[in-house]
């Protein structure tokens, strides 16, 4: 119970910090927009081509954006010297991770949902009919990205060249999320849409595995 109340308080703190400046959300949205527009020059985005390549590039844009967006997550605590205070404030350090990854999932999901209509319009793919299913994939994918990304940003925050290091550590690790989410999205954007449950199940497994690993090893990531 303590864990949940601690997490809720810290989650509130993460949201307040972000919504005071809204820096992270605006820059991430603009970044995804730029990537989506630039990708259109690499192939001819007709409706049928977009159905084939669109989901992959959309997820690639999300992953790149996430590897930049997760950067300040622990760096902010580091520069303000607040990590030690945070650790003293909670009984279980896992609460810090839970709060941060919940906030990151929410931020990622928000930017994805803002960018989805833009993608649909620019690449001529209808999304209205499959919106609930897309929301599910986006949620599971973003959760997977946030769980591993939050853990790795705690590492990269304490290294040199940290801006380069986080994408290097995170992107190869996210290969399973990229493959599974892109496959499910391809199915959903198909002319006759279908849900690839195997992919959904796979994403759930990825999320559970990495959440467990974070629960087991997370506290060591926060050692001074």
């Amino acid at each position: 119970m303590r864990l949940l109340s601690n997490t809720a308080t810290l989650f509130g703190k993460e949201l307040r910090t972000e919504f005071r400046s809204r820096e992270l959300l605006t820059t991430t949205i603009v970044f995804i927009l730029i990537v989506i527009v630039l990708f259109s020059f690499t192939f001819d985005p007709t409706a049928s081509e977009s159905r084939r390549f669109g989901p992959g590039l959309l997820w690639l844009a999300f992953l790149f954006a996430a590897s930049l967006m997760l950067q300040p997550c622990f760096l902010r605590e580091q520069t303000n010297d607040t990590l030690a205070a945070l650790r003293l404030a909670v009984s279980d350090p896992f609460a810090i991770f839970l709060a941060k990854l919940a906030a990151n999932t929410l931020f990622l999901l928000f930017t994805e949902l803002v960018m989805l209509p833009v993608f649909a319009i620019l690449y001529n793919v209808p999304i209205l009919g499959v919106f609930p299913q897309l929301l599910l994939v986006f949620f599971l994918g973003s959760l997977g990205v946030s769980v591993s990304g939050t853990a790795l940003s705690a590492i990269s925050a304490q290294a040199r060249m940290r801006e380069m290091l986080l994408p290097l550590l995170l992107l190869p690790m996210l290969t399973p999320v990229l493959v599974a989410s892109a496959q499910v999205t391809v199915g959903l954007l198909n002319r006759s849409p279908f849900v690839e449950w195997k992919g959904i199940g796979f994403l759930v497994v990825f999320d559970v595995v990495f959440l467990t690993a974070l629960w087991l090893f997370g506290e060591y990531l926060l050692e001074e």
Partner: protein
Amino acid sequence: MKRYAFCGTLVVLLVSAAAYCSLLLAPTESTMGSIQRIFYLHVSSAWTGLTSFFVAFLANIMYVYRREPRWDWLGTSAVEVGVVFTSVVLVTGPIWAHPVWGIWWTWDARLTSTFILWLLYISYLLLRTLVEEPERKALFSALFGIFAFIDVPLVFGSIRWWRTQHPQPVVMGGSGSGLNPVMWKVLFFSWFAMVTLMILLTWSRYRLEAMRGDLDTVRREAEVS
């Protein structure tokens, strides 16, 4: 030192014997011809690379719980050796594939996951160069090593389910696959030789890392006093 030289000679003999067996003793494969002989180097290096990463994974877990520098030394040595063996796999693969499949590379499950595995451990080695403080470096790389190793089966599963377009694996590939008994023996012997090579390399790398660690401690003490 004497023991080391003895073991080194033994490993050189074993590896040469494995080379002899795979180049001359093993029967020539009926469809692929002599190029198939690269299989003994390729597959045994792949298995040895994985063995090495598994050793590193165990050492990483031990470090996180025990915090003894020797586990960190073992972890990083095993990862470096694993990366070397995996590089051999990635180089010999295309050399074998080109004459047989007519292409250098295909995005099949095992090729792609080996590549991702290699990238993950290259990132591990990079991470070690970018964290200054020795204890933090040891802890963070151990934790990253654990996450990376957990990720490997997921990478393999995802690619195998959605991206594969490749002939059945020859070894443990289900019905229709199989090897001539002599080929099996040569393969296992090559693997054994490679594992002894892996142990020798990890051992010497470990000694170097231990010396480096000691030097670092002495240097820090000198700086403090």
